[in-house]
């Protein structure tokens, strides 16, 4: 029998399962960093973590508190400058997986981290901005997005495209000349979404135990498609939960 766990824990565990030994992963801060380190301490000890602070092959023994945490430099195979991490490592397509979060995501997996509201000059909410995300979303071989699913975060069209998912649909990434294949999965607290191979629309492919397709639909700002093969996510194993909780406990340290 499996211990009780929260929806956030299930989301993080499901995200960690996207990484494999040898995968080279460009890690955003927050949920992606937690998931990537969980993967490193469970199924994928040889995952290669790259942070935009220029730390390549970081192996922190606790959760870094920011992408510039000193533990990343201390444990990295090599520390490079920020221009180098973008130019030599991200831009040429050397990274397998870009691991991002978002403030808003839309039907075509476009990401907004810039402004809420449609008037850029007079926003309802000014968000932090692009950071490394536009080029991570463009150049990594594939992208994994992790964020909590609500009607405010899962919208039909993002107010501002900070980072391109599939633009306005099939063929757009190629037309734009983006080298990576775009978001492969979006992992939420309700389930797992993937772009439909034909339409590029995010579609529910798995629900986490205890959630239903209806729950996910209710948390989505467009009529969410559901895969005919809808799966149920394996619940967190004891090991996954144990490691995750021990990692989370290092945050205050």
């Amino acid at each position, binding site marked *: 029998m499996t211990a009780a766990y929260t929806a956030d824990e299930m989301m993080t565990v499901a995200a960690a399962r996207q990484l494999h030994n040898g995968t080279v992963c460009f890690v955003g801060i927050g949920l992606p960093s937690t998931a990537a380190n969980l993967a490193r301490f469970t199924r994928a000890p040889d995952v290669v973590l790259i942070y935009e602070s220029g730390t390549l092959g970081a192996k922190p023994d606790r959760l870094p508190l920011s992408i510039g945490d*000193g533990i990343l430099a201390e444990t990295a195979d090599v520390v490079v400058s920020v*221009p180098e991490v973008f*130019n030599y490592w991200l831009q040429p397509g050397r990274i397998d997986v870009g691991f991002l979060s978002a403030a808003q995501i839309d039907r075509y997996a476009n990401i907004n981290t810039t402004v809420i509201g449609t008037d*850029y000059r007079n926003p309802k909410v*000014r968000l932090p901005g692009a950071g490394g995300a536009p080029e991570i979303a463009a150049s990594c071989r594939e992208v994994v997005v992790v964020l909590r699913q609500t009607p405010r975060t899962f919208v039909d069209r993002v107010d501002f495209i900070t980072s391109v998912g599939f633009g306005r649909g099939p063929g757009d990434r190629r037309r734009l000349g983006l080298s990576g294949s775009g978001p492969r999965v979006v992992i939420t607290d309700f389930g797992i979404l993937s772009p439909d191979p034909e339409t590029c629309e995010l579609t529910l492919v798995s629900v986490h135990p205890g959630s239903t397709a209806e729950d996910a639909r209710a948390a989505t700002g467009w009529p969410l498609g559901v895969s005919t093969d809808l799966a149920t996510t394996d619940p967190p194993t004891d090991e996954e939960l144990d490691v995750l909780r021990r990692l989370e406990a290092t945050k205050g340290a």
Partner: protein
Amino acid sequence: MAEIVSLPEGIAAAVHDGDTLVMEGFTHLIPFAAGHEIIRQGRRDLTLVRMTPDLVYDQLIGMGCASKLIFSWGGNPGVGSLHRFRDAVENAWPLPLELEEHSHAGMANRYLAGASGLPFAVLRGYVGTDLPAQTDTIRPITCPFTGEVLTAVPALSPDVTIIHAQRADRKGNVQMWGILGVQKEAVLAAKRSLITVEEIVDSLDHKPQEVVLPSFATTYVAVAPGGSHPSYAQGYSLRDNGFYTEWDAISKDRDTFLRWMDENVMRRAPAA
């Protein structure tokens, strides 16, 4: 050759009203002490430039030092919003703040072009996003060999760049290690530079993964021990994570912010 000065002397000599000012630091080695001295000296109408404007830029903006911000990610890392930054953008308090917004890759390449003495840099970036529509500093450029269209961004060549580093020798050679960020490029891109350091030592033994800025490439060096607090200086101090969380509450309210600045910055003597 760099001149070794006190922090107040360095700020007075290097930073003038209306300047384009870079203060870089990627979580690590953020030059807070220098920022506070700028606030105390009452600089106005600055164009602030930084990839990751954080608390020290929130303070400069909230104290009315800045009229424009060139940046790529403005948040309290690991905590949330920068409330003074948001108040300036959303409500023009205490002043309107013009934005010139880029991605990290674009900003890094703008510094790189500045450091290289070139007027622009080329990258694969911004395509398909809504960022180019908001600025005239993102333009297409065509490869003269393949015909491929890429993106150009203009060089950043600030009037002055300020960074914090671990140490310098008596000739003014500066050494830093740990997370390196874009500090070297930001210094080399600038007309003038001021580097605050934890200490001045007789000689710099090499450190793994270091950056050394030779004395001939910088303008002023000032000793400011703990000058990156609440950020950290690898080998000298740890990040004060608690303060980043506390800042959320301090900065949320205009009066609380002003009171805190008065007590903790305006009435404090500058670092020796």
